[in-house]
């Protein structure tokens, strides 16, 4: 199992099957047999990658939430000029299936949306992904503002992926850039 492409394909197939099953079943009802059956795959393949259903489920939701964060990052990086292009549905890095899973995840109470919180808390790391071009002095000087800005941005924007409307997100991104200009006058948000 050294082939990471194959691994990614298997993971994607399992996610698709999982999303299909979740439409009609409770999260605790789905078994490995059902999942692999739906994905048209053997149980052995499943167990090569995951030791049990819990591990798969966690891996699945962690992936979904991380992808959602990356998607928000891309929207931000695209900047004002890239708004048009970045929000076309075909340019989303999160496909319909993963967005369905994300919607399901956000509607669940039982997991206390653990991955969601910890992703938001990875903000400082995430900030550096967005912000290669900023000086350390700028980041240091504005750490409080930047933390609040990015936390607000992520928490406001991520839920849009559950029911994606490019019109809505574009309007909100315009607001975001307005807030950016107000908070950090003269500082460009990207290169």
């Amino acid at each position, binding site marked *: 199992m050294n082939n990471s492409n194959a691994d990614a394909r298997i993971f994607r197939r399992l996610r698709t099957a999982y999303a299909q099953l979740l439409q009609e079943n409770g999260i605790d009802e789905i078994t490995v047999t059902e999942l692999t059956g739906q994905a048209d795959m053997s149980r052995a393949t499943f167990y090569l990658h995951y030791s049990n259903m819990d591990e798969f489920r966690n891996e699945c939701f962690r992936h979904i939430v991380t992808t959602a964060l990356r998607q928000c990052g891309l929207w931000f990086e695209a900047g004002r000029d890239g708004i048009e292009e970045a929000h076309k549905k075909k340019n989303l890095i999160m496909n319909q299936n993963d967005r369905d899973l994300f919607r399901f995840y956000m509607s669940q109470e039982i997991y206390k949306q653990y991955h969601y919180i910890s992703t938001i808390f990875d903000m400082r790391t995430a900030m550096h992904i967005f912000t290669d071009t900023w000086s350390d002095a700028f980041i240091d000087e504005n750490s*409080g*503002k930047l*933390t609040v800005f990015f*936390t*607000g941005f992520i928490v406001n924007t991520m839920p849009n992926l559950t029911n994606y409307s490019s019109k809505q997100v574009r309007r909100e991104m315009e*607001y975001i850039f307005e807030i950016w200009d107000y908070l950090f006058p003269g500082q460009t948000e990207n290169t």
Partner: protein
Amino acid sequence: MDKTIVNKNHIADALIELLQDNTVETITVSQLTEKAQIGKSTFYRTFSDIYEVFDYLFCDFCERCLHIMTKLFLYKDVPHVLTERKTLMPAAEIFNQFGLLPKDTALMQYLFRTNNIRLLKQLIDRFQQSTVPLAQQAGFDPQKASYFARFIANGTVFSMLESYRRQDTIDTDIILFLLSLDITAILPGGDSQ
């Protein structure tokens, strides 16, 4: 005062005390009535279960929070606190400075401690809704104003949650950021089409 309200507050206070070491899900009515030193029948005359007590507590808390947030964001009516940058202050002290009662602080800490995203979101939703009429009154674009309110509330609450989870403290940079905000500068009246 109405006897039921006295009872309600008495029971709610007892619940707050129990929440210091428990979660809502694990507290039993017997525990609560024992703590409040009342009979079970008195309890059931006032509330139907623990969750109803918690809701009562939460609504009360929301009202005071909204009041403070509105003062903070719209009227810049802020007590004199913390001026040193990049210091971590105990959360309880900060909440206290902003006029939250000790029981509100206890509830806030409970929400943070248990990562209760659903209720925190509810608080933010209420805040967002409450800004709409205020924005209209002031001649701001209500859609933009309410987005902005949500943005700031989310940013603040979740940043606090992060620093709180780490060490029961709140980063004063976040508070200073709030103090420096001028909502009228970003929302010129009638600016939208």
